[in-house]
């Protein structure tokens, strides 16, 4: 636990100055109290926001201009027309198809993979994966062919490089930081329980 102590460096001064007497859960001496929890909360929120942003950034997504129109229609009303390559009896091939389909994002869905999406386009994309594997392409080549057409956006897990690294590093960093704050706060509070939150509720000394 002591190894996490460095995480709390600098935190002792971030108390918002609220009276401990009205914040019963604030640890003694108010050092890693409300401010620390606020910081942890803000970092958590920042991470939650960063995750979709990182995915958008890795695809080079730009905000829509003032003249932007609604996106094109994506309703496919005629399921009978679907002619995509059907699943085969080849278990190894189908396993490869499913593995790739789980990595690729369905363009007409909200954060669903091709494997999970019931949309026609997703079924067609799955059929294209199957066809390309049957034609002799390697799984990596098939994956790259979708990236070439749709951009990195089509990958559900962004490549761990550049700005995308934040998505992988931030969760660990925030977890360690938040854990460190909690541990340090608890240790201080346990070390001096007499100065803890109960202090504010103690009866005044008898005259």
């Amino acid at each position, binding site marked *: 636990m002591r190894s996490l102590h460095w995480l709390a460096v600098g935190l002792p*001064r*971030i108390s*918002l*100055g609220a009276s401990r007497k009205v914040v019963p859960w604030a640890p003694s001496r108010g050092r890693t109290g409300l*401010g620390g929890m*606020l*910081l942890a909360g*803000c970092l958590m*929120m*920042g991470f939650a*926001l*960063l995750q*979709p*942003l990182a995915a*958008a950034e890795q*695809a*080079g*997504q*730009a*905000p*829509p*201009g*003032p*003249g*932007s*129109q*609604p*996106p*094109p*229609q*994506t*309703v*496919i*009303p*005629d399921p*009978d*027309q*679907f*002619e*995509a*390559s059907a699943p085969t009896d080849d278990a190894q091939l189908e396993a490869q198809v499913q593995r790739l389909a789980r990595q690729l994002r369905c*363009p*007409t869905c909200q954060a669903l993979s091709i494997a999970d999406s019931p949309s*026609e*386009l997703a079924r*067609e*994309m799955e*059929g*294209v994966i199957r*066809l390309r594997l049957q034609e002799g392409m390697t799984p990596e080549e098939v994956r790259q*062919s*979708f*990236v*070439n*057409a*749709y*951009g990195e*956006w089509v990958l559900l897990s962004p490549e761990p490089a550049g700005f995308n690294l934040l998505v992988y590093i931030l969760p660990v960093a925030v977890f360690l930081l938040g854990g460190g704050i909690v541990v340090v706060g608890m240790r201080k509070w346990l070390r001096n329980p007499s100065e803890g939150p109960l202090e504010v509720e103690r009866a005044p000394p008898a005259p």
Partner: protein
Amino acid sequence: MNVKRMLLGLIITVPIIALLVAGLGRDPRLIPSPLPGNPAPDFSLPVLETAGNFTVQEPGPGEVVDLSSLRGEVVVVNFWASWCLSCRSEHVPLSRLAEHYANQDVHFFRILYNDRPENASRLIQSMGGQSYPTLLDTRSGTAIQYGLTGVPETFFIARDGTVAHKQVGPTSHELIMQWVDRLLAQEWDGEAAADPGSPAVRGGVTEGM
């Protein structure tokens, strides 16, 4: 107020507000395309039969159109479906412009996406025919190669076979003319860079230049 506390508060809140502003300003439905600036995927697709009278183009019903054979010429490819209302609004400008550019190095094609050929034929006939061919992409292989996310989407392909521009959503007479004229005049330098002077913002969502 303590200056250090103020600074710390700013350090925490400013990035969060910046993230909110950046994140909420994006359209999550807008999918960027890597195609503009890159070679157009080749296709070899049959022409829809009974798709009206092709007054301006060679390939007849049942023949196959091979994109790679059209290098050196400008190609406009429009993905559509008969069930797509926005696509119907593009029918007249595309058909008229195909006639307008009939004697120049421009080819117009529509590729049918996820639709029955007979439905497409019926609609084309009901709208008075089409001056250029519709191609069949029965397994959507070409649509997926072009990163299609819906219809209509229009691709403007330069003489060197590079995708110059992708138009997501309905296009317009003016936008088509500006891009085709520009590509015919070889004013496009092959870079998918932002170009404030481009006609990009006229129609739907733009990508590429």
